[in-house]
């Protein structure tokens, strides 16, 4: 959701180390980042900050736990996007979220999954609502390197489905 980008970012963790020289924060233990409707949960996190407010947040799970991501989507009532992956990279400037390895992203509308993607690399640009998916963790398409599956739920009958005013 665009309004998120003007909200405060709140991060909580069990342990944090600030490195003043490289302007990096290393977070460990039940890391949770919230910013407006954006919510990310992980076990480890590294946040870098550039003077102009940019920088990146890299989150990873631990011993099998994955990173969880959820954010409200613009363009309609109760539209949400949820994601899971071994690693999540969030670029604070471009607000692009990248889900890397065993990634799964679901689009929800009124609590019902309308679309679900699985793949090795899924990226979601929350400002422009652009979504890309490829089959290798590098984000490049590797021919024959596994498939990306996208399943879209059929829209309900005209009567109960609210037209998407995209």
């Amino acid at each position, binding site marked *: 959701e665009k309004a998120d*980008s003007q909200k405060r970012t709140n991060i*909580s963790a069990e342990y944090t180390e*600030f490195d*003043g020289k490289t302007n990096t924060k290393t977070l460990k233990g039940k890391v949770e980042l919230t910013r407006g409707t954006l919510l990310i949960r992980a076990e480890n996190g590294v946040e870098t900050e550039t003077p102009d407010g940019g920088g990146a947040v890299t989150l990873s799970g631990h011993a099998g736990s994955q990173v969880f991501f959820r954010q409200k989507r613009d363009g309609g009532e109760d539209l949400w996007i949820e994601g899971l992956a071994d690693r999540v990279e969030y670029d604070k400037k471009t607000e692009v979220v990248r889900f890397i390895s065993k990634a799964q992203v679901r689009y929800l509308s009124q609590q019902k999954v309308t679309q679900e993607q699985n793949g090795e690399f899924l990226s979601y640009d929350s400002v422009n609502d652009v979504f890309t998916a490829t089959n290798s963790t590098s984000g490049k398409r590797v021919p024959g390197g596994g498939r990306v599956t996208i399943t879209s739920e059929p829209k309900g009958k005209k009567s109960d489905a609210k037209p998407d005013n995209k």
Partner: protein
Amino acid sequence: MTADRIRVWLGVALLGLVMLGSFWIYEVMRRQSEDEAANAKNRSEPDYYVEHFNFVRLSQSKQTNYRVTGEKLIHFPLEDEFEIIQPRIVGIDQEKTPMTIRADRAIVKQKVQEKLQNKPEDQIHMHGNVLVERSKSDQGSYLKMATDSLILFPDSERMRTAEAITMTTPRANITAIGMEAENNRQKIRLLSKVQISIAPPSAK
């Protein structure tokens, strides 16, 4: 025969007496060392105090290591410790920006060896409304820290607390329980229950 028995019992009784005696002496020594530790807590009588002072500690390289000013400085001979009322400490390292630390009270312990492998160094125990401020510099942004008590190690430029701490930088407010800082390496570790709140990036 009975004489023998008496002599034997006499020996045993004597032995018992010696044993009891040594136990009694041990008991007295133990209680005495405990008393010494006890009165160390409320400390011996001060032998001098200084009012409105400026205490400058020079480092080996003869530059100012740190400066302490305060309303009153009281010296305790037995422990060779200073207690300072309303201390204001400015840690100066030639290249870095000064860091100012205030508190209600501070106790300066000189040349304490915390662990065997560390060399002995000064420790400054700050208590009550401790406030650390570092002005903006090319090394780092403005930083303010508030806590209830803090231990400074000026020689190795380290700070440590086990208490709750609130940190403020121009863009973030941070709270945690327990903190360790190495000023020369610009490292701050927050040890538990960390909450960070960052202002939105400057308007796009």
